[in-house]
């Protein structure tokens, strides 16, 4: 009889030792374990409800905006009569799409589709003559209170002529489908092919072939804090926009363009964020709209997204139709997947581009020489997508992991063993695929650790025992490769970033960086890295982010790059300053500059510990005596650096291969579920995961990211969906309709770590913000299907809501 291992009660597990490249002399290890990590900055403010978010910004004389949105999925706007709304006493401004044409240029795209060979078109901040999705902004009202502004919306009369709409991507691809953008001729935005070798030939010749389909429903980020903007113009024509945004500098550039204001006269302040996940990438019409409204009202104006409006923004609605050929041992010989993404309507928000990594991430962690992946973004009359953590990479994880389990089922081999037989082996790195140059990986080791953590053999034994009692336990493995840090030249989605480090006379240090935090705590980690370079207390280092007047130009927060880019740039800047300060110490103390340690708040001679200055004394002396005292030749204690490019391959090699992503973390997941075969309800019983994001700076924050990503993946796998009605309107308007996991839905997540440093990044780190979403979705998908095996059916649709699962059971898996 096999016994089940006791799950650990603590969520924290001790990380394993790192390999830390290039430690500065005298510096402590990159991260300190056993509770010596720096405490999260402002954690006390957050926990006690005193932290300020955008909705807390209230300049004197603030007015409030409300937005009228289209009730039609597709219609011509024949006219807008706003006279009654304008006549209301409390109303200051009413703006229609036609009014706004002369006040703002078309909106720059977050990611211009033509850069990657897609079709494109122009959008305005308010629809002018046509609406293409329910919820599209049509007019806006400013009033002295939000209640008055919302009430006035009812007095705006829009004359719509409804047009035929299309909501389904397959239908949108038909010749007779309504076309959203007539100049395109059809609804295809583009096509992303990723292929090597001869997939069709290898599949045709393979001894075994499996073909299947996987559908993923429309999902949504659901940040706790919705979007919001507060705009204020100064009499001299200077604009300040407080925004819950992930990209303050690109937003500033785009506002300058759209509003015709010199960029230096626009200040964007990215306020503290209650969750981003891609929902707060810039490109929304409301960004310039709120600025316009403020200018017209001659007063500060605030707009906060309602939950219903927030839920409009979509993601992840994909269909996979795949076939895979394999040999008797379960080794993949050829793989093809045609992926269609229902991106809703195109918009300047960049979410449609998730269809790129959805294909690019193939063939994931597996060594498959012959594959052909096509990812097709299709426009429909649903609301547009914006980014969603996972960014399409979770699609590859789900399809590939489903394929591994289908092969295992077909060949009667354990699913873990099928993966081991197909993994890229450790000695093969760096490893090229069509669109990735993989940095490093110990995939089988990570999977084996996850199996051990989960007590995999014991789980199988429990499953066997449960099946004998007619219960449907399912064990699912999910392995996820997560390309991170992407760099797309031509856009503001760049793979580098900029930081300034400034040492003040008192010895205090400021870091000003172009990367922002969505609430994950990267400011704490950046302070920790800089403090470590100077050997000073982390409390002596301040970090400023998100204020375009204060910070060097940067691209903000996306693709898990903040630490690898902004953090690395800050480290480089600090190292340069340390050299300047060591030179000064050497002149002042008459010692060799190279022989100083920066530690414990002092600059200490390595040969004679009595020869030292405190860090603050040295800084003040440089300010007071620089250029006057012999040897104090460089009194500028401020350095701005970018991190060095690492592992980008923009120019295709002779085989046409390129790599826009520099780092490739991965994670292995094991889930145990029980499927109630009478109701279709899935209960998640146990969950274990191993992650490997290279060198870790802050284990607590990395673990926090993983818990969140796994929870988000579980929600996406089991419950989260925005269905659309036949009227073309989304049916999820509150969190009673869009079901995200709550604490009782989640078991203790057992988490441990493996650390395979990136050979390419400055600190050996890999991105740590998205890993876990796809692995969790894949593990749950496989676990539920494993539970259904005795019933002889498969479930092919995510989320695996009880109706979907019961449908699969009742209809024999043909759903």
């Amino acid at each position: 009889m096999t016994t089940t291992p006791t799950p650990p009660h603590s969520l924290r597990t001790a990380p394993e030792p790192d390999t830390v490249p290039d430690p500065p002399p005298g510096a402590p290890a990159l991260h300190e374990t056993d509770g010596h990590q720096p405490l999260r900055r402002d954690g006390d403010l957050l926990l006690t409800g005193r932290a300020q978010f955008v909705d807390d910004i209230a300049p004197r004389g603030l007015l409030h905006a409300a937005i009228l949105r289209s009730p039609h999925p597709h219609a011509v706007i024949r006219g807008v009569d706003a006279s009654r709304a304008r006549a209301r006493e409390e109303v200051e401004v009413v703006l229609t799409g036609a009014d706004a044409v002369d006040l703002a240029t078309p909106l720059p795209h977050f990611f211009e589709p033509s850069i990657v060979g897609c079709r494109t078109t122009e959008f305005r901040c308010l629809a002018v003559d046509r609406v293409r999705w329910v919820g599209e902004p049509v007019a806006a009202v400013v009033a002295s209170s939000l209640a008055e502004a919302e009430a006035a919306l009812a007095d705006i009369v829009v004359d719509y002529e409804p047009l035929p709409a299309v909501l389904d991507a397959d239908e949108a691809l038909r010749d007779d489908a309504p076309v959203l953008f007539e100049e395109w001729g059809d609804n295809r935005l583009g096509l992303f092919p990723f292929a090597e070798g001869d997939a069709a030939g290898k599949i045709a010749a393979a001894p075994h072939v499996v073909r299947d389909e996987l559908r993923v429903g429309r999902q949504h980020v659901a940040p706790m804090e919705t979007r919001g903007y507060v705009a204020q113009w100064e009499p001299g024509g200077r604009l300040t926009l407080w925004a819950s945004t992930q990209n303050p500098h690109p937003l500033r550039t785009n506002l300058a363009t759209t509003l015709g204001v010199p960029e230096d006269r626009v200040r964007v302040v990215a306020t503290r964020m209650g969750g981003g996940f891609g929902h707060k990438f810039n490109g929304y019409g409301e960004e310039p709209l709120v600025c316009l409204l403020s200018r017209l009202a001659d007063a500060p104006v605030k707009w906060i997204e309602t939950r219903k409006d927030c839920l409009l923004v979509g993601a992840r609605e994909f269909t996979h139709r795949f076939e895979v050929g394999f040999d008797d041992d379960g080794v993949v010989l050829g793989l093809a997947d045609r992926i269609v993404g229902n991106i809703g309507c195109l918009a300047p928000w960049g979410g449609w581009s998730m269809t790129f990594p959805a294909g690019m991430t193939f063939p994931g962690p597996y060594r498959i020489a012959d594959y052909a992946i096509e990812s097709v973004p299709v426009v429909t009359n649903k609301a547009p997508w914006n980014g969603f953590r996972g960014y399409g990479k979770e699609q590859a994880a789900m399809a590939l992991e489903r394929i591994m389990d289908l092969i295992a089922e077909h060949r009667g081999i354990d699913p873990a063993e099928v993966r081991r037989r197909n993994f890229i082996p450790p000695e093969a790195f760096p490893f090229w695929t069509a669109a990735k140059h993989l940095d490093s990986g110990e995939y089988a080791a990570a999977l084996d650790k996850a199996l051990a953590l989960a007590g995999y053999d014991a789980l199988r034994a429990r499953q066997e025992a449960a099946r004998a009692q007619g219960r449907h336990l399912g064990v699912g493995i999910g392995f996820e490769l997560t390309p991170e840090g992407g760099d797309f030249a031509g856009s503001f989605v760049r793979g580098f970033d900029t930081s300034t480090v400034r040492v003040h006379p008192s010895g205090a240090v400021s870091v000003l960086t172009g990367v922002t935090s969505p609430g994950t705590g990267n400011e704490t980690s950046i302070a920790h890295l800089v403090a470590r370079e100077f050997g000073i207390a982390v409390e002596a280092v301040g970090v400023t982010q998100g204020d375009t007047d204060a910070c060097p130009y940067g691209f903000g927060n996306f693709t898990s790059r903040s630490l690898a880019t902004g953090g690395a740039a800050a480290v480089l800047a600090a190292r340069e300053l340390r050299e300047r300060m060591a030179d000064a110490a050497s002149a002042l103390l008459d010692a060799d500059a190279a022989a100083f340690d920066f530690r414990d708040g002092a600059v200490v001679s390595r040969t004679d510990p009595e020869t030292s200055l405190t860090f603050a004394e040295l800084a003040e002396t440089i300010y007071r005596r620089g250029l006057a005292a012999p040897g104090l030749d460089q009194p500028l204690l401020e350095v701005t650096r970018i991190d060095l490019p690492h592992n980008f391959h923009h120019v295709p090699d002779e085989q046409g291969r390129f790599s826009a992503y520099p780092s490739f973390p991965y994670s292995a997941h094991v889930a145990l579920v029980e499927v109630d075969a009478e109701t279709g309800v899935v209960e998640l019983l146990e969950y274990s995961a191993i992650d490997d994001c290279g060198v870790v700076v802050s284990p607590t924050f990395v673990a926090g990211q993983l818990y969140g990503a796994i929870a988000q993946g579980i929600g996406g796998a089991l419950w989260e969906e925005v269905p659309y009605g036949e009227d073309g309107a989304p049916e999820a308007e509150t969190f009673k309709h869009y079901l995200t996991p709550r604490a009782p839905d989640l078991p203790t997540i057992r988490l441990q770590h493996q650390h395979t440093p990136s050979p390419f990044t400055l600190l050996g780190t890999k991105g740590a913000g998205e890993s876990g979403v796809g692995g969790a979705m894949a593990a749950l998908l496989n676990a539920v299907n494993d539970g259904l095996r005795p019933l002889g059916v498969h479930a092919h649709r995510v989320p695996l809501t009880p109706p979907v699962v019961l449908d699969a059971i009742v209809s024999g898996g043909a759903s």
Partner: protein
Amino acid sequence: MIRTRLRYHRPDRPDDAAALLAEHHGRVAVLAGGSQLLPRMNRGETDVDHVVDLRGLGLRGIERTGGRVRLGAMVTYEDAIASPLLADAVPLLPRVARGVTGGRQLTGHATLVGALCHAFPGTDMPGALSALGATVELHGPSGPRSVPVSEFLLGAQEIDRRAGEFVAAVTVDGVARSGYCKVKHATGSWPIATASAVDDGDALTVTLGAVQARPLRIVIPDPTRAAVDDAVAAAVTAPWTDVLAPGDYRARIAPVVARRALTELREGARA
């Protein structure tokens, strides 16, 4: 954001409440816990100019009246969970209250009667109170009026409440033997199907909630699996569809929840 200018009233006599409700009929809402009303007003789904708060009327009691138990309109889920009288005489109500989503932020102010009056199919209380043969005690301009819950619930979010009336209390049968089953998608989900099994000594019944627009009370003459399935299948004629589940799903699981509630009745609640 509540878009209208609101007048808040807190009468301290039932007749004053009825007079206010009559005076502002069509532009007034009754406020008990507010857990449904206020979010609806914020979303612009309920649009009124007056709110009449019942808290000044002293309607928070749980008491025996003859062979029955009366619950005032302001009795919250927490009150029901904590009540020794309910634990003894009507254990179904605390059993159901413990399973209500929302945590203490909700259960401390949301009321059982409010949930009944909201009459949203995807809630626990209409089904549970129907199972207990509840009588709804209204108070209006012409005094009190009593209605059986089966007549009070007219349809989805439709109740028999006339101009000037509010529900002051419900009375239920004392039923010591009961079982409950609720199926829902996740913690945050509203009920997709509920079943209250009640054995009052005379008859064995299962009342399905959330399965149709109104609760379905089904007499179970024979508790065998096949008979229960047949009785439920015959009763479910117009299953409810909402954003979380289609009607055919509810029809499929209705016999299952019925059987599970009967099992709990027979074997007692699982720990």
